[in-house]
């Protein structure tokens, strides 16, 4: 049962009719739910009468079947003392505040030189505000879990992005030692960040199983996922760029306003990429939050870089126009020699090569000429992509049998990325044996600890542990013969102290805009990426074009509309929350330049899960401007917004 108010208190709950329904085992509310030992924020499920957002869990019906549970949930009546909610993000909100840090552990604001003075003195400058809306991850497979208590503790069969992360959280919340919690997640139907952290339904399932002494399954409905599984904050981003007439940047200022929930802080790192993308002596980046009566925002594919690179890369396009310079050349002109924020050299930085190669393949010179073809206004745009190349600690074990087969064990996770395939391939490559002889067990907190799928760190972290385990196993076999066992543990990347490590890319979009209706189509989208060695060209390409498709969706479609009066998402289903469909995607291609970067890891491979979504929306927005002369600075680029300028 979810709250129907966005702010206030529960005054009374009547569970009588629900409890009396045949097939109902129990109904839990804040009045009788077990007390949780260490739950905070959104995970303090049924711990108080306070309501912090529309759709919050206010009661839990446990029944023999989901149909009975749903029926009974509708019979629960809740009386509230409601207060008017604050749900709208505004740049002039007097209650904006600076968080202690932005995700994952970055400083909130940065200041180099004097951006304001440099902007005032710049021969060419732009000052534009871009906005992005509430976006929702919405993987195809909804969140679901089964919790089962035994004498040994609790076992949770779950759909997540890392079983160790979930295990730790459950142990904290229920005050259990970690060894009494087991989480399995062998197959996952997508996550896009929404399954990195534990969400309220997981806590509810564990609590309910404890209460009724039986296994309990909770599968969120699509509608429930809009308020209970995270989302990307809306952003308001003011970009000011100053430049010499030749296009050389003299100042960049990127000031971000975004939201968080009142019960839990999530500070998206929106301007992070602006700190390292281009060279300039004067730079400021700031983040301000509004704590609103909204569901808790969380990680969504490329948190920070996806909205941030949209704004930055549109602004760069606007500056190129103001200077009368090809936007490809303007970017190349402002390439930094070293990471401007960290003062470290880049381990590799393939942006210029991606821009040049992309321009050649795309036929950029020809495509960027605005033209009319029948009722269509046509044009093209370009934008850069980037994402950090990081890795986490990970451990793995390896076992060689007498029959020449090998088994690796690691708590990695395959959320549809192809991780299982790629890790098997990495192990087979390192052992130099046919892939059929290797199996890799993943997706279980009883396996050796490794970080989850997030931050494009999966292959980099797990693969490093697999490589080390394979090398150790080879040494054991060479010394003692078969069978043999080995294990390995790799830490974070010590090279991160010496190098700035990032993926890069350049995306080129061609659009056609209906001159009468403002409908935008994308006949061509090309991404050229510098992502180190691509270990598997099939799963790798799939990750990149998947990211680009999600970027196209962000550019043209995705937008959850929050009702200002009641605070609910008005379009919380797939009919009205638009995600790009097949017909929206026409010619789409992703390629990569030759790059091997052994500073990032032993495979020479950078993460590719997120770089594909960064920059896409800017390339499409820039193309729409090229085609129509209309600069839509608010995503998504809907027909009415294009028409307003035509």
């Amino acid at each position, binding site marked *: 049962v979810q709250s129907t108010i966005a702010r206030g208190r529960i005054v009374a709950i009547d569970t009588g009719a629900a409890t009396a329904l045949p097939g109902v085992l129990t109904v839990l509310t804040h009045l009788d739910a077990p007390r949780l030992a260490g739950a905070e924020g959104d995970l303090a499920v049924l711990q108080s009468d306070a309501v912090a957002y529309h759709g919050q869990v206010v009661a839990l019906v446990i029944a023999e079947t989901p149909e009975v549970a749903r029926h009974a949930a509708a019979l629960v009546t809740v009386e509230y003392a409601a207060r008017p909610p604050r749900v709208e993000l505004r740049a002039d909100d007097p209650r904006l505040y600076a968080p202690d840090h932005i995700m994952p552990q970055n400083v909130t604001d940065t200041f180099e030189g004097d951006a304001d003075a440099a902007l005032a003195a710049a021969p060419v400058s732009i000052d534009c505000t871009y906005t992005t809306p509430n976006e929702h991850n919405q993987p195809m497979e909804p969140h679901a879990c089964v919790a089962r208590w035994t004498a040994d503790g609790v076992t949770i069969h779950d759909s997540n992005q890392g079983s160790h992360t979930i295990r730790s959280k459950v142990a904290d919340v229920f005050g259990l030692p970690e060894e009494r919690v087991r989480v399995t997640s062998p197959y996952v139907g997508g996550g896009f960040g929404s399954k990195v952290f534990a969400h309220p339904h997981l806590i509810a399932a564990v609590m309910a199983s404890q209460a009724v002494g039986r296994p309990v399954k909770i599968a969120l409905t699509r509608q429930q996922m809009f308020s209970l599984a995270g989302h990307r904050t809306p952003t308001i981003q003011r970009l000011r760029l100053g430049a010499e007439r030749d296009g050389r940047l003299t100042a960049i200022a990127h000031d971000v306003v975004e939201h968080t929930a009142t019960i839990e802080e999530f500070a998206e790192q929106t301007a992070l990429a602006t700190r390292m993308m281009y060279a300039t002596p004067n730079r400021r980046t700031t983040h301000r939050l509004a704590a609103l009566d909204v569901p808790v925002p969380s990680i969504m594919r490329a948190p920070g870089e996806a909205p941030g690179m949209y704004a930055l890369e549109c602004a760069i396009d606007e500056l190129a126009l103001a200077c009368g310079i090809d936007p490809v050349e303007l970017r190349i002109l402002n390439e930094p020699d070293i990471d401007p924020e960290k003062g470290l050299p880049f381990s590799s930085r393939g942006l210029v090569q991606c821009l040049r190669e992309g321009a050649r393949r795309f036929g950029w010179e020809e495509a960027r000429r605005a033209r009319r073809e029948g009722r269509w206004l046509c044009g093209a745009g370009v934008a850069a992509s980037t994402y950090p190349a990081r890795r986490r600690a990970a451990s793995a074990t390896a076992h060689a049998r007498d029959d020449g087969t090998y088994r690796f064990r690691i708590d990695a996770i395959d959320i549809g990325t192809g991780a299982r395939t790629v890790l098997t391939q990495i192990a087979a490559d390192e052992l130099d044996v046919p892939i059929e002889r290797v199996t890799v067990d993943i997706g279980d907190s009883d396996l050796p600890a490794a970080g989850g799928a997030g931050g494009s760190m999966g292959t980099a972290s797990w693969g490093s542990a697999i490589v080390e385990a394979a090398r150790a196993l080879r040494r054991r076999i060479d010394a003692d013969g078969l069978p043999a066992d080995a294990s390995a543990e790799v830490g974070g990347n010590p090279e991160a102290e010496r190098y700035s490590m990032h993926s890069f890319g350049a995306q080129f979009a061609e659009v056609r805009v*209906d001159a*009468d*209706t403002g*409908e935008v*189509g994308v006949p061509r989208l090309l991404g050229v990426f510098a992502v180190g060695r691509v270990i598997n060209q099939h799963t790798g390409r799939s990750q990149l074009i998947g990211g680009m498709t999600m970027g196209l969706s962000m550019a*043209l*479609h995705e937008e959850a509309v929050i009702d200002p009066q009641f605070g609910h998402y008005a379009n919380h289903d797939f*009919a*009205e929350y*638009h995600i*790009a*469909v*097949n*017909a*929206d995607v026409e010619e789409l291609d992703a390629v990569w330049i030759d790059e091997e970067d052994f500073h990032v890891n032993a495979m020479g491979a950078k993460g590719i899960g997120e770089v594909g979504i960064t920059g896409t929306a800017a390339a499409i927005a820039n193309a729409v401007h090229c085609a129509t002369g209309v600069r839509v600075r608010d995503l998504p680029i*809907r*027909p*009415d917004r294009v*028409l*307003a300028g035509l």
Partner: protein
Amino acid sequence: VDALVRVQGPAGERTVAIADLYRGPGDEPQRDTTLEHGELITAVDLEPLPYATRSRYRKVRDRASYSFALVSAAAALTSRRLIEDARIALGGVAHGPWRARRAEELLRGGRRRGALPARRRAELAAAEPLRDNAFKVPLPPT
């Protein structure tokens, strides 16, 4: 096209003219049609009209497939040198399908070429849009 809608209900079958199937919001905005509780549409009868030989349907939408129309238009013409008859229905501009009778009337007896934009303006001159749907007024496709 003057379709007749056959409706099966607890009390038996009845026939509703398509124009009478949809209702204004009135006091019950949750009811889109004049169907009663328990009634089911079983068939739509269409006369074999010559209109079908010269007709167009166009849907303007937020994404290329699987989305509600921002605005849609179905138009059929019977004409030789001049337009003898015209039928136009618009979707997404009112509570239900909007039969553009004023535009139809103005088209009859006129020339085909270039006739529509002015008639469209005439049809929509009295439209009273709200803030967020004002963009629809000039949108019905020609």
